[in-house]
């Protein structure tokens, strides 16, 4: 692992009304590494990643990308710094086909007219690069399974060539085989040198793809473990707040 982190969060604080959602969190992200972010509901995982994705602005603290102090007033600013997030709701258009969703908002067109053939070809290439199998690229996304939809959302985010890719609960609603496919996909993305942040409640998934795990508790990062140095029991006790940091 390189000594210099790709992205560093320092002393991030965020308050919603009277609730201190984050109380000074430090976090480093490294290229080609998957960081698992765990913690109970309302521990601050989502708030932290949303700050990184530009959805919320921190009250205090700094975001350092490649050594430079940056501010993300909106998601576009984060995207400009090549930080992508796959939201839990996936942000797909159910009535539009697979190729159309992959190219949503940046359609391949010639003087305003869609080049559907070119989009399907490019989509096939995009999916093949991540070894995602979708037989029919002209099927509407609404007709696909949960795992396929998740794969498309991840492929779409990965196609922006991000430095950091945040995934919020990508495996929570999936069947066994689909979870495997998504975990494999995360490994492929990681192998491209992307820093992956994985929020999940499924602790067993962490041990399959993550290199490092950060545990959040009541708005603080209470522990950070390399994957080889921890166990399921250790994580559980940290998450419920009974373990030592």
């Amino acid at each position, binding site marked *: 692992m390189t000594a210099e982190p790709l992205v560093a969060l320092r002393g991030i604080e965020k308050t919603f009304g009277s609730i201190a959602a984050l109380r000074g969190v430090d976090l480093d992200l490294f290229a080609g590494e998957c960081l698992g972010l765990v913690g109970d509901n309302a521990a601050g995982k989502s708030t932290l990643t949303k700050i990184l994705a530009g959805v919320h602005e921190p009250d205090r603290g700094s975001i350092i990308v490649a050594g430079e102090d940056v501010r993300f007033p909106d*998601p*576009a600013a984060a995207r400009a710094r090549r930080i992508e997030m796959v*939201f839990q*709701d*996936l*942000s*797909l*258009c*159910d*009535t*539009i086909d697979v190729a*159309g969703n992959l190219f*949503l*908002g*940046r*359609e391949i*067109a010639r003087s*305003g*007219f*869609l080049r*559907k053939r070119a989009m399907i070809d490019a989509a096939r290439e995009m999916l093949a690069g991540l070894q995602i*199998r979708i*037989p*029919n690229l*002209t*099927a*509407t996304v*609404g*007709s*696909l*399974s949960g795992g396929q939809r998740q794969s498309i959302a991840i492929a779409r985010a990965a196609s922006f060539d991000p430095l950091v890719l945040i995934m919020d609960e990508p495996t929570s609603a999936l069947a066994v085989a689909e979870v495997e496919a998504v975990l494999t996909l995360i490994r492929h993305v990681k192998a491209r040198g992307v820093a992956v942040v994985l929020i999940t409640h499924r602790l067993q998934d962490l041990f399959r793809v993550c290199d490092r795990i950060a545990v959040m508790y009541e708005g603080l990062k209470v522990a950070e473990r390399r994957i080889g140095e921890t166990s399921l029991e250790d994580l559980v006790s940290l998450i419920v707040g009974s373990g030592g940091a």
Partner: protein
Amino acid sequence: MNASARPAGSRRADFLIRYAPVLSIAGFAVICLIFFAWGSPYFLSGGNMLNLFRQSAPLLIVAIAMTFVITTGGIDLSVGSTVALVNALAAIALQAGLAWPLVVILMLGVGAIVGGVQGWFSAYQGIPSFIVTLAFLTGLRGFALLLTRGYSIPIAPGSWFDVLGRGSLGPLPVPALLALATAFVGFVVLDGTTYGRHVTAVGANLEAARRAGIPARRIAASVFVLSGIAAALAGLITAARLGSGSSNAAVGFELEVIAAVVLGGTSLFGGTGTIVGTVLGTLTIAMIGNGLILMHVSPFFTEIATGAIILGAVWLNARVFARLAGPGRRQ
């Protein structure tokens, strides 16, 4: 790749699922055609068919634009009142001696502005389009009544303006040609352009469209400009055909338009629009009206029949569609 991979599924099944709504309205249109051809010897005659196309032209033009509005998940209830306003304004302007090409351009401009204002209220101010256009349905009609004081205003015959409503190119009536051109352009734009794709995306998932960098509000507002212009064109055609402008024109027109669009298979929830379906839906409604009159059924009964047929067709559509699409489909 994978030995146990699922096959892609038959192309025929995919085709059926995708086009089920259009196929069902196409079937319905054919049934209507056969029924009325059997019921009246005049129904299929060339003269009656051309008349049917001429009469349904305003309906078709506005229904095409309404398909865009409904595809974004909006609704435009003001089109009938816009038709009346343009109808009256055009007659007043022509009576005042304005040149007809200028009148046409001005009226289309009025339609665009009326639509643009409604689009602004609904897309940028977050007021549901149902409410905004309901307000305009009342307001624009009142404005037209105020302008004409309720009287019908005659348009002096003999100018080229008449051609818009009564002219023919060869055997084909000019209004029908205008409607067909509108339908063709609508089909190409909705199905084949970036703009059409964005219209669908805004209706399918507004938040996703916004996150993908689509100017969602501008798209949602723009469709009302389209329906405003289309209503203005329909108003001009009606004025030219009847040779007068009246503030009482096109009462209940908006409901007929929406019925045609929904009958064609466009989803009121947004995200799914079909121009081919809208054309078939419009023709079906036009055939029912025309055919029942030819069969000497009371015109009052026509309204009952139209209502029943709309409900029946949409019900069939939903049933057939739901079964073909299977449980995988959401919403």
